[in-house]
């Protein structure tokens, strides 16, 4: 297993290098000059010398590849520079916002897994009419945009029922609506995976044998189907978790949740290059880590793969 992990890490190095280049390039080559934008927004009369000094301070006066190499050298030490907009280090900015995003992603993930298992298994277990109804609900939840769902929840739970507040302070109770918004869409998408995998397994010989032996539905589900579907589901869960970490930008913005999504939205508007670049690299690392985790779970869940790895 250790060898597998080391090999995976070695393989991913060129990918990460390429990703870092893309992250740097798409931000550095995007139109907009952070120094000029900030100065104009401030209503300040700068001299040309001031502007040159500021550009030099942020390394914007150097050629593109030199800037990339400088940045890469520092990024390897997790030094992504200083935010143009706030003056804090980029790592401090990420440290400030990461806990909120993690809390939202983890709670949304728990909700999504619960919803997906419930929808998937119920769709399999229900009769033709009930199953069609659940599948219809699943398609509806997958199709509804998260911002629309967020606004609907705000209208119902905040404005009409008064059960929640819109402008929270990052407390647990403020987490409910944004987490629910994200859970339903992600859970519905995962529910389709659960439905397909469970239904596929139910036609396998070992499940038919279990049914013939007179085992109950719960025993069959937990003892015969779950071990076989956990691997594919882990891969889907890992991808979903990565997407929840990086893709909650709109929901965070609507609910004012102080996470990385808010950070990067503002950074894009202000052309805060160091923050955007660090965010992109960070998200790449998250996806790599979650997919590695999923691979490990797949191996642990599959005896054949375990054996093949130990033989190798």
């Amino acid at each position, binding site marked *: 297993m250790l060898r597998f992990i080391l090999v995976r890490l070695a393989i991913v190095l060129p990918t990460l290098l390429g990703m870092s280049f893309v992250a740097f390039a798409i931000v550095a080559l*995007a*139109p*907009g*000059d952070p*120094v*000029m*934008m*900030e*100065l*104009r*927004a*401030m*209503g*300040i*009369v*700068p*001299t*040309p010398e*001031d*502007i040159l*000094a*500021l550009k030099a*301070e942020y390394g914007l006066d150097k050629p593109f590849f030199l800037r990339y190499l400088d940045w890469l050298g520092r990024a390897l030490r997790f030094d992504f520079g*200083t935010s143009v*907009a*706030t*003056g*804090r280090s980029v790592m401090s*900015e990420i440290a*400030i*916002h990461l806990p909120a995003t993690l809390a939202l992603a983890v709670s949304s993930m728990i909700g999504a897994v619960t919803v997906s298992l419930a929808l998937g298994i119920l769709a399999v277990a229900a009769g033709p009419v009930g199953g069609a109804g659940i599948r219809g609900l699943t398609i509806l939840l997958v199709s509804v945009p998260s911002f629309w769902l967020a*606004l609907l929840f*705000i209208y119902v739970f*905040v*404005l009409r029922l008064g059960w929640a*507040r*819109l*402008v929270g*302070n*990052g407390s647990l109770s403020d987490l409910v609506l944004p987490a629910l918004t994200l859970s339903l869409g992600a859970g519905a998408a995962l529910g389709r995976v659960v439905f397909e995998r469970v239904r596929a397994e139910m036609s396998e010989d070992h499940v038919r044998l279990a049914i013939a032996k007179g085992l109950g539905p719960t025993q069959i589900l937990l003892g015969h189907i779950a071990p076989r579907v956990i691997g594919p589901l882990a891969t889907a869960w890992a991808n979903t978790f990565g997407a929840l970490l990086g893709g909650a930008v709109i929901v965070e*913005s*609507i*609910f*004012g949740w*102080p996470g990385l999504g*808010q*950070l990067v*939205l*503002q950074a894009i*508007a202000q*052309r805060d290059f160091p923050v955007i670049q660090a965010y992109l690299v960070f998200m790449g690392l998250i996806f790599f880590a979650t997919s590695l985790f999923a691979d490990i779970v797949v191996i642990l869940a599959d005896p054949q793969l375990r054996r093949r790895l130990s033989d190798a």
Partner: protein
Amino acid sequence: MTPFTLAARLAAAALIAAPMALAPAHAETSLVIAVKRDRYSVDEQKFTFSVLNPATQIVETAVKPDDSFLPIPVLFQSWDYADGTYVVDLREGVTFSDGTPFDADSAIASLRLYDQSKSDFLQIDQQSFEKLGDHRISFRSEIGSALVIENMTHRATSLFGPSDNRAENPIGTGPYLFESYEPKQHITVVRNPDYWGEAPSVDRLTFRFIDDDNARLLALQNGEIDVIGEVTPQMLLSMPQDGSVVLHESRPIRYVALLSNIHGEAPFNILQDRQVREALAWAIDRETLAKVLYAGRSIPAKGVLPGWMFNLGDDHTDGFGHDPARAGALLDAAGWTMGGDGIREKDGRKLSLRLIAAYPHVSTVKPMPEMLEQMFAAVGIEIDLVEVDDSGVYASTYLDTGQADLFLEFASNNNTDPTYLLYNIFSTNTVWGGYKFIAPGPHVDALLNEARQAQTRDEVIANVRAAHRAIVQDDLVAIPILLVPNFTLSRPGIEVPMSEYADWIDFGNVTVSH
């Protein structure tokens, strides 16, 4: 009743009444103000060494703008300017919140901080500071400018007291003290009990940073916030009309104008002909636009600077009415004759103009671009409308390259230096790259340079008036459309003392009726 019984009853009554007597004279008043972005940053090493809105309550400037945007005393009691030297009498009886007296030494130390900033737009000669008395100092401008005091009305020049960490422990002389700050969430300030001036009416101010326009409006409707300090035009369009939200407005200050590319290369060279620019100006129905946009609170513009500002007055520009016939006649005179498809032509070339909407983003002027397109079509001008929702794309892709004929802008002279806007946008010396395509040329440069070098206020204003007239009337590189107030929104029962300058809205003296 025996004396003992009476005494016992009086004692019991006193015991019951004691807590009421000891209670504070008034309940604490607090106000939650929603602003769009967290711009709280007081790092002296960077150019956002600034004290935009929330922190403006903690620190104060030397002077502030009056109703005409002229500087009036705050921490500077009075000042004289002669031969490049400023002599300033400081306000006495003022202390910083850490107890340090505001005197000649601490004032010089505060002013020296600005030399550390990368945007030292005060440009004070650092070697020139002199202490002339306990509360009297003098200094010189590095560039011989008579506008240093004007520039001190900018909140970014607020005077900080000594502090090891200005971000976490900002020391100022302001009416409020720093209490707490959560990045991207809120900053809270509480009333300074030792404030030297008139005490503000609100005890505690919390500024909530809510980036999403809809969320700010919904939070106000839901009673979670009291005031919205940054109101976008889209919020005015979606504002409920049932009285649950109250609109407060200043005098008009922001302008909406079309800036003309008069130095562009083909195909963006049509507007080098002033007659075509004037035809555009007459083709615009400003009254209709004023009714449709900005909750009907804007007014047709005769310039990009309102007449009340700096006492400029309204007489130095004439403005343009809505006269499509006159626009057509001007285009005819310029050789653009009406084609069969309703688009004018000249030497086989269509009268087609690319219009970029808008700075800072198109949503600030919606639906004006489409309305302008219709108005110009009515006189035979085809518009290639490009809508951009990002000021970076607006500047880098179109303005800096001159790849358009017209640029729609929603901006303001957000500085009390009378030359600020005109010099930065309409001078060939502009540091804002692309505006060189708009600048009229040496005659306006000369007027603006004279304004910046003038040694008396009257000279400054006379030159600014002349430059302004050239820009919006004689050369007509900026076609004025509307002047728009600064807005705030509140729940009912709140009166906001508005200012045209958003950073000078005095939230500490908001009136709240319960």
